[in-house]
């Protein structure tokens, strides 16, 4: 890779890194505010879970940020805007959730939320171990990975992300924010279509891999 290509690649990562950093800092500041309003803590399980939930979101963002910074360069990508916009909307739309007010602290919902965010986060780390540094926001082909969690499903990282996002949603729990989730799911499915299409073009072995695997849930979808 030439120096110019390296600089171009680094610059192209900046917007999303800045975007994610903004929400990471916002969540960290939110934790400080939460503690300011509940400095008494002792024995307040509901508060401890509310705090753990926020911490899990910070861990998830940190993991995603580190994956994105250390990813490989693509070997094939779309030149038209449609897949890129779909991918951006699929990724960014869900962050609107974080700009809406959270539901009041509730030990049950916050415990469930923490659990889902942590399951999503752990799965994402395991996927990244399989994937190496091939993470991308746009549908781009970097390397064909068919081992580990990819042996049975084609999009384990999406599955991990969606588990965590359902966990995020449980912190808000309102009908008003439900459309954000639905639109996000729609764009994510479109994103998988684009991704499968470019991988099929870049790697001849992808067709056979697609035949023997499920998209997200083994035996279901």
């Amino acid at each position, binding site marked *: 890779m030439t120096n110019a290509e390296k600089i171009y690649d680094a610059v192209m990562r900046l917007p999303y890194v800045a975007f994610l950093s903004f929400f990471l800092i916002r969540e960290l500041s939110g*934790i*400080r*505010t939460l*503690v*300011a*309003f*509940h*400095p*008494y*803590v*002792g*024995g*307040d399980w509901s508060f*401890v879970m509310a*705090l*753990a939930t926020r*911490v*899990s979101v*910070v*861990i998830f963002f940190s993991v995603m940020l580190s994956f994105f910074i250390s990813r490989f360069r693509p070997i094939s990508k779309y030149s038209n805007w449609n897949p890129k916009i779909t991918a951006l909307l699929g990724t960014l739309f869900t962050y609107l959730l974080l700009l809406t007010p959270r539901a009041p602290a509730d030990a049950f919902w916050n415990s469930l939320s*923490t659990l889902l965010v*942590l399951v999503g*986060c*752990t799965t994402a*780390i*395991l996927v990244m*171990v399989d994937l190496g540094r091939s993470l991308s926001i746009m549908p781009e082909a970097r390397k064909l990975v068919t081992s580990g969690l990819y042996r049975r499903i084609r999009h384990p990282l999406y599955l991990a992300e969606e588990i965590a996002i359902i966990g995020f949603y449980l912190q808000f729990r309102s009908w008003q924010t439900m459309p954000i989730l639905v639109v996000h799911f729609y764009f994510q499915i479109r994103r998988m279509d684009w991704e499968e299409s470019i991988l099929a073009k870049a790697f001849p072995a992808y067709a056979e891999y697609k035949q023997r695997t499920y998209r997200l849930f083994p035996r279901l979808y």
Partner: protein
Amino acid sequence: MLYRVLPILVLGLTAALTAAAIEFLPETLYFPVVEYSTPENVQIALFKNGELDRSSCEQGAGKVAIAIRAGCPTCKVVERCFRGLDAERRKILSREPLSTPSVRMPGGKLTMTLSTRDPQLALGVCQQIERQSASRRVDQRLRCFPALAAR
């Protein structure tokens, strides 16, 4: 191996960071305290939840002091801001029993301790504060706790 260890590591990291936030974050915050003594010589200390910076803390303490002075022109009022919580203030803001009567707002947004040489007088003032707040919204009402009572 990684599949077994990683979930435990992530869970452990979350627990450790949550515990660290509970233990250390209050040290970065500012807590307003307003102290005043009534004409009956009851010493009242009013503790509010934390603020992110000193100016917000001073502003919050100032507002409370103005409200107290308006209701009790002869009371001596001193407002202060503390960075962090020492063991004593942490105990006052917690649900642990105190050696003096205390008043607490639901959720611990506001806590008052009352001390005087006559314990009955302190308890009487404490109960009076509770009665006076009875007409407020539920989350704004103050509840009086006698000395050594679970809060």
